């Protein structure tokens, strides 16, 4: 492997999450000298990747932690369905095929896998879980990168790029110019940029700015600075600029880094009301894993961007335990008081719902026949009356997972300027996920895209840098 002697690295990687690390490791393995710039301080390194738990992988037969088979075609159809066709089939299939090959490489760099976690049996076939979660994965990659001689700088937020005619020249941190022969951008979406979110979500009819009430589920460092810089430099974009993946989280979730544990999983077992104590959507439309991602948006559309998930004691123990204790009362009036809802209106809503319940055979593991008649909105499944105290209530607010806007790339992960691929500027991870995932989501695809295109970008950058070296030498 080439000694890292010059201060100008072959490959500059900007970002410090999964995609950046996969790129840095691959470029280094290809013999390039690599410098990685992470905006966050060491203890907050790893971006949203440190909150993840699994990646989706194609496999044709049972493997260590994966049951059964998940062939390319099925994976592709799943992607096509969740994105409603907003995907590039060629790039999507590339990600899918590579996902079946990347885990040995991951293991070589210290990642361990475990069977699907308790409560996630529905993912045991399709998703390989990281032992200890994404932070353990990120730790392993940093450790391996250090051992291989990748130079790593923390608290190094790049604020400008020098791009001339679609070619990368240098990155800037304040007054410091960092040149490199090739560059990989892997600095996430713009989900932590409050201003930008505000703009993207706009103002509602009541004059509210919904995004002001959002929790950011992941890192505070994904400000989209380089997305914006690339757009200004004329790079081609992809994905809906106004959309974000948005789930309903506990209203007490921290502003940043609440991660997975602030999710509220009891929606389908009870009812959800807004701050006027009115129901607003079919809570039992489909299985919760298929529906949890619409509830962020639903709550965002309610006044004050809050909702209240209400269950009775029959539901306790049937869903993942919430991180914060809920409001709890022996009467509906008492619960309404604790949640700050109008008592009369709340009791009426519950009574109307209860009266409309047509209870058949309750079974939370199938789309059962418990439904409502003559109430709007209807609840199509798991409709049991709320009649067994104590009652529990959880206030909900929208939590942003990631944004969809990204940069257009090809199968070498090259950034594009007016349809032309850059020779030495590559993009990976959330920053280009929109090529595969123009909208929608299915569990584990973010890490699949980051790992596959991180490695492709790293290899492409190393090749571009070395070629440039040769050109220089022969010039």
């Amino acid at each position, binding site marked *: 492997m080439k000694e890292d002697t010059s201060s100008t690295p072959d490959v500059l990687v900007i970002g410090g999450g999964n995609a950046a690390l996969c790129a840095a490791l691959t470029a280094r393995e290809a013999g390039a000298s690599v410098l990685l710039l992470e905006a966050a301080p060491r*203890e907050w390194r790893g971006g949203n990747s440190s909150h993840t*738990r699994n990646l989706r992988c194609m496999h044709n037969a049972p493997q260590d932690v994966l049951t059964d088979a998940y062939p390319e075609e099925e994976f592709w159809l799943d992607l096509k369905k969740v994105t409603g066709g907003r995907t590039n089939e060629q790039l999507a299939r590339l990600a899918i095929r590579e996902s079946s090959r990347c885990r040995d490489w991951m293991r070589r760099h210290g990642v361990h896998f475990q069977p699907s976690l*308790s409560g996630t049996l529905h993912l045991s076939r399709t998703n390989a879980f990281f032992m200890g979660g994404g932070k353990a994965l990120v730790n392993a990659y940093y450790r391996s990168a250090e051992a291989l001689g990748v130079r790593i700088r923390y608290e190094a937020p790049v604020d400008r790029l020098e791009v001339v005619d679609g070619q990368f020249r240098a990155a800037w941190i304040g007054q410091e110019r960092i040149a490199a022969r090739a560059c990989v951008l892997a600095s996430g979406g713009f989900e932590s940029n409050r201003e930008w979110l505000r703009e993207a979500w706009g103002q509602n009819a009541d004059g509210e700015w919904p995004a002001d009430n959002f929790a950011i589920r992941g890192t505070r460092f994904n400000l989209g600075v380089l997305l914006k810089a690339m757009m200004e430099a004329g790079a081609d974009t992809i994905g809906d600029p106004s959309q974000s993946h948005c789930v309903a989280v506990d209203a007490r979730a921290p502003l940043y880094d609440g991660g997975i544990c602030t999710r509220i999983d009891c929606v389908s077992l009870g009812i959800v009301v807004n701050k006027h104590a009115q129901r607003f959507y079919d809570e039992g439309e489909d299985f919760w894993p298929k529906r949890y991602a619409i509830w962020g948006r639903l709550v965002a559309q309610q006044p004050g961007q809050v909702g209240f998930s209400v269950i009775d004691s029959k539901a306790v123990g049937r869903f*993942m335990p919430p991180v914060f204790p809920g409001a709890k009362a022996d009467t509906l009036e008492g619960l309404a008081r604790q949640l700050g809802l109008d008592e009369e209106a709340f009791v009426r809503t519950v009574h109307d719902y209860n009266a409309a319940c047509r209870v058949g055979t309750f079974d939370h593991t199938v789309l059962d026949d418990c439904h409502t008649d003559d109430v709007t909105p209807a609840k199509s499944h798991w409709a049991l009356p709320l009649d067994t105290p104590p009652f529990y209530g959880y206030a909900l607010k929208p939590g942003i997972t990631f944004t969809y806007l990204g940069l257009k790339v090809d199968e070498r992960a090259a950034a594009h300027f007016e349809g032309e691929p850059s020779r030495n500027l590559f993009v990976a991870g959330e920053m280009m996920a929109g090529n595969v995932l123009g909208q929608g989501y299915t569990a584990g695809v973010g890490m699949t895209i980051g790992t596959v295109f991180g490695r492709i970008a790293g290899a492409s950058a190393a090749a571009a840098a070395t070629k440039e070296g040769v050109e220089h030498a022969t010039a």
Partner: protein
Amino acid sequence: MQQLEALLREASDLAEGVIAPSAAEAEVERVMKICNACRYCEGFCAVFPAMTRRLEFAQADIHYLANLCHNCGACLHACQYAPPHEFAVNIPQAMAKVRGQTYSDFAWPSSLGTLYRNNGLTVALALAAGLALFLMMALAKNGTLFHAPLAGDFYAIFPHNLLVSMFGPVFLFVAVALGLGVAKFWRGISAGDPNAAAIAETAQDVLKLKYLDGGHGQGCPNADDASTLARRRFHHLTFYGFMLCFAATCVATLYHYVFGWAAPYAITSLPVLLGTLGGIGLLVGPAGLLWLNVRRHARHGDAAQKPMDRGFIALLLLTSATGLALLAGRDTAAMALLLAAHLGAVMALFLTMPYGKFAHGIFRTAALLKWAIEKRAPNPVGVGSE
């Protein structure tokens, strides 16, 4: 309203003899609720699978989980909510604090439980007392600590019956005190009835120290997030060294009473071979553990218990070092001195056993047995397939 409810609950708890949770217990309850909503660490050890079988964490559950934790540190480095995150989740530390508390709360007699709190002092005093006792006895009996070589005949210095009359009761006391302590702990965590399969699994978990393997076999973190098997290996040397020394004493006792063969035994005899091997294990093992302990990441475990951990390690080291020195010098004029030093160290080790780090092995074994029983029963919490 809520306050009133809380007051009422407290009053009824008091009436039923429920003790309010300590700060350490409340912290374990807090962090376990976060983990139970997260579960990323399920693959590391038994604590997390045991946690997912619960929705609430009563005091007994907290005591059980705290002793099930092996303080390996893996879940701290992997935790997305570890400090500086505002959730400040540090499982190994929270568990260690409760563990320390259970040792002292369940000590027998309970008045001696306080010895845990100043364990460094406890160990120092016990050692001073042990050494002084045997040195003075040797002096009183022989008038000098140096003597003509006695060809390794210990009993010329301290007669066999005298040693038996001193160590016998102490050993019995240790066994009774630890036994009663762990029995109380066992009743508290209401562990159920062990079956053969559960016992066999527990034996394996203990003898292999399964839960220091990180869940993936590559060991657990020490100074940083890198996995190492060093802690497990040095513990094996310590544990099996200790057991071999214990076995040496048992064989010697058998020789004495059953076969009537009196010490000193030849270098190639079973007691001396076992003792030598064990002594080496008990020298290298604790030395390694001390080395690791000094380098241990500051956030692992409870800093307040470091003196106890190191005191115990030092005592083990002293026991093996003096034992091996005695073997080496048993034909010299210094044998009485070496013997007194070794017996003093052994006495201190035994005296402090029910009130020091040694308890960790007993309590952990009990917790592992409960886990082996519990995991064979159906999961009481059916969270469905969300």
